[in-house]
Structures are given as C-alpha cells and as structure tokens.
C-alpha cells in the first residue's frame, strides 16, 4: 500500500515545469525587489529621492536614535494591545462556536470569516462613519441627550486600536476555533466529575490545551498589527507615526529611500523574530 505522500497519479512532469512559473515570478517580483531594498539600505540618500553611491551603515545607525526607537516601541505596544484585545474578544466567541455551536457551527464560522475578506478599506471607512463628530455614535448620544458636545472619538490612538482589533479579530478566532474544536470534551467531563468548578476547568484544562491555538492566533495578529499602515493613517488623523507610516513617509515625503529601506528591514526582522519564537515554541 502506498503512503499518503506517494502520489504517482500526478504525472511525472518535470519539476521545472511545475515549479518554474511560480519560482520565476516570485524570484523576479518578490525576492528581487526585496534584495533591492536590502541593497538600498546600505546606500546613501540621493537628492530629492532615489539613491546615491556612497555605501554606508549610517541608515542602520540612525535606527538607534531614541526617536525611532520610541516609534518602534510604540508600534510594538500597539501590536501587543491589539493582540491582547483580540484574544479577550476572540476566545469567548471561539469557545462558544466550538463547544456550543452544534450544527450551526460552520455558519457561525462563515460569519466570522465574512468580514475578514470584505474589503479592509470598507471596514475602516465604517469606523470613520461611526466615530466622526457628526457620525452615528455622536448623533445617537446627542439625540438621547446624553452629551451636549460631540465626543472626539476619531483621530486618536483609541480609534486606531478599535480599527486594528476589528480588522484582525478573525485572524485570532480561526486558530482558536481550530484548537478548541479539537479539544477532548471527555477531559472536561472528567475534571467536572472530579469536582472542579467551571472557572478552574477553564484555567487548568481548557486554556493549557488550547495554548497552540492561542499562540498561533496571537502571532498572526501581532505580525499583522506590526505592519499596519492604512488604519493608523485613516483613523489616527496623521498624528501618530508607527513603523508602517514611517516607511511610507520615508519613501514619499522625506524622500529618503535608503533609510526607508533600513526601517523596512527592521520591520521584517521583528516579524521574523516573532515567527521564530512561535516556531521554536511549537517544536519544543
């Protein structure tokens, strides 16, 4: 009997034909551009954009400047907050879907996936519509007489956080759900039989057993939030600079491509570190 991986039915097409097109495309239009960015990070800024010859480590040295470290810190903080909030909101939802969803489970799952694939821009715009001074929330509160002056809900870090959490919540829910679904209920039953209260069951049994899902979801959300650019721009009022905005800024307004490249690599490095930690933990 053949093993699952030994599929002779896929004809012995030469590997180059199968892999070739994808390889060529990725090499030309993903790896080469990235290599260019790496190269640029060692060059100097040309007048008014572009790059100029002198090789330098200056761009990396600049990253150590407290100003940029502060931006890095702020981005990390926001990413961590987003992850924690997603976890807090996503866990109950995934728990409900996995354990109590019953036959409607796949529908419930679809309802989570749907907003995720529906235009990120549209969803961000939805937040603008809700949070503006003359947006829905303020209009309702004013109508109800609860406030006299509109609350400044938009153009601050809170709005950005709301937008990010809203945007990436499904990324947390899906792995959590997968993990919770695989949970062996009999373990929970056994714990109950042994007299454990629901809270204790949650803490001592469920959470530890679903740890892989928690980590997977957290990494996904964290990494996505790190590179966030659109949400802070539209919801933040141009007042905050996160790493994503800084990169965009260096390539446009500041016209400092080499420095922008260095920052891009910094972002990639942080992303890579987060993923490496997750992989190490998974293999442990």
């Amino acid at each position, binding site marked *: 009997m053949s093993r*699952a991986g030994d599929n002779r039915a896929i004809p012995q097409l030469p590997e180059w034909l199968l892999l070739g097109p994808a390889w060529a495309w990725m090499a030309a239009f993903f790896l080469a551009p990235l290599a260019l960015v790496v190269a640029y990070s060692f060059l100097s800024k040309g007048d008014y954009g572009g790059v100029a010859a002198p090789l330098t480590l200056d761009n990396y040295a600049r990253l150590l400047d407290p100003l940029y470290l502060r931006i890095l810190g702020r981005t990390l903080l926001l990413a961590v907050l987003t992850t924690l909030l997603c976890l807090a909101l996503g866990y109950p939802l995934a728990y409900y879907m996995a354990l109590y969803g019953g036959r409607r489970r796949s529908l419930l799952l679809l*309802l989570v996936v749907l907003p995720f694939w529906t*235009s990120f821009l549209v969803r961000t715009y939805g937040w603008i*519509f809700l949070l503006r001074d003359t947006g829905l929330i303020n209009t309702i509160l004013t109508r109800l007489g609860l406030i006299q002056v509109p609350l400044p809900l938009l153009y601050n870090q809170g709005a950005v956080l709301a937008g990010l959490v809203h945007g990436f919540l499904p990324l947390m829910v899906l792995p959590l759900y997968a993990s919770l679904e695989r949970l062996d209920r009999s373990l929970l039953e056994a714990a109950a039989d042994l007299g454990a209260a629901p809270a204790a069951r949650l803490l001592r049994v469920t959470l530890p057993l679903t740890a892989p899902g928690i980590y997977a979801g957290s990494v996904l959300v964290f990494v996505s939030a790190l590179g966030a650019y659109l949400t802070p721009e539209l919801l933040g009022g141009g007042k905050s600079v996160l790493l994503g905005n800084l990169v*965009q800024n260096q390539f446009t307004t500041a016209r400092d491509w080499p420095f922008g490249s260095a920052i891009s690599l910094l*972002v990639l490095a942080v992303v890579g570190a987060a993923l490496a930690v997750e992989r190490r933990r998974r293999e442990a």
Partner: protein
Amino acid sequence: MASWSRPRSLVLAAAAVYAFLHAPVLILVAFSFNESRFTVWTGLSWKWYRELARNPRILDALWNSLVVAMLSTALATVFGTLAACAMRRGAGRAARALDTALNLSIVTPEIVTGISLLAFFQVLFRFADLGLGLHTIVIAHVAFSIAFVVIVVRARLEALDPALEEAAMDLGASEWGAFWRVTLPLLKPGIVAAALLSFILSFDDYVITSLVAGVGSETLPLVIYSMARRGVSPVVNALSAVIVVALGALIVVADRLEKRSAG
C-alpha cells in the same frame, strides 16, 4: 458530550463580539439607503446608488479592478496549482525553497512589499520604456496571490485519497489519464476556491496597488480611499454596500465549494 446548558454570559459575550465584528459594515450599508447625506435618517432612497451608477470615475475604476483581478487570478491560480502539485510530490530542495519564499511573502507587511516593487520598477523602467500602469498592478497582485493559491490547493491535495487514483491506474488508465479523469476533477473545488480567494485579494487590495498604479489605472479601492479621505459621502456608503454584497457572495460560494468537496 455532556448536556451542559449554555452559560448565559457566554452567549451574550459571543453575540456582543459578533455585533462588534459586523456593526460598522451593516450600519454603512443601512445608511447607504438614507435619503439625507447627513447621519440623520430621513427616509429610504436609492438615489445614492443611482449617483454611483452615473459616476464615470467609479465605473472606470470598477472596470480596472475587474480586469486586474481576472488577469491576476488566472495567472496566480495556474502558477499556484502547478506549484502545489510539485510541492506535494515529495518535496525537493527547490520546492522547499519556494515554500519558504511564499511564506515570506505572506508575512511581509504590504507596505514593505509595495515599496520594494516601486523601487524595483523604477530601476526596471530606466532600461525598458515602460511605465506604471495596470500591468504593474497585475504583476504585483500575482506575486502576493500565488502563496494563498498554493495553500488552498495543497490542503485539498493532502485531503485527496490516493487510493482513488491508484484504483484508476490499476484499472488501466495511464498516469496522465488518471490525473485528468480522477485527480483534477477532485481537485477542482479546491482550485476554484483558490481562484475566488485570489480574486477577492486582488479586487480588494489598496496598499500595494496605490504604490504601483500609474496613469489611468485607478482601481476601486483607490477611489474609495480618495473619497473616504475627502469626507463622508453616502455614495461611498453605496459603493461599500455593493462591494460587501458582491465579495460576500463570492466568499459564500467559495465556502460552499469547500464544504461540498470535503463532504
């Protein structure tokens, strides 16, 4: 499982999170039918949709988005499916390396991929007399879609029962025959799901597209962004509603396909 009754608090929590997830978009859609251009409900009206249909900029952008999405989906699906087949087959070094590259493309933030492509095109266009345009958008979209196509098709391949193909071959079919008559049809739902996914990703992309678009190649997300920045207009609500419904339908179709094939 034990018949624990659902804890009320959990149901409420789940419902609240669902509300949080869907409220912004539902409200947007609801207000696209509002007569007034302000956030005060004055009555039902289709007028913003009529204005939408008359807006040449939006129609042009819709056309561009469709063309780009279809071209990039076609290319990404073909390349991705072929690659997925190769990777399944007992991964050689080349396949593993491609796998790494594809994973890298998924985790790299869009802003970074976007600016890297912009820089790349800038260098390229010094030697070739080309410019930024729809073609550069297609190139970029294929580049980030291949990874997702591979993931979906590979998942489908793993789920295939090799015994079926073996049986076909034992019954006298050639390798190619078995592939065409057995594997491919079984793979089809996965391929279609991957294609739909790729279409949605392309149709919806803003960050990368905004960086590599050129003259006359404004896509729908670019228009939405531009209009959203200029303020709230019910026309944007209407446009959002149309996109949500259209993409939503595609997702449901993709989902049904997955269900049917898995069953």
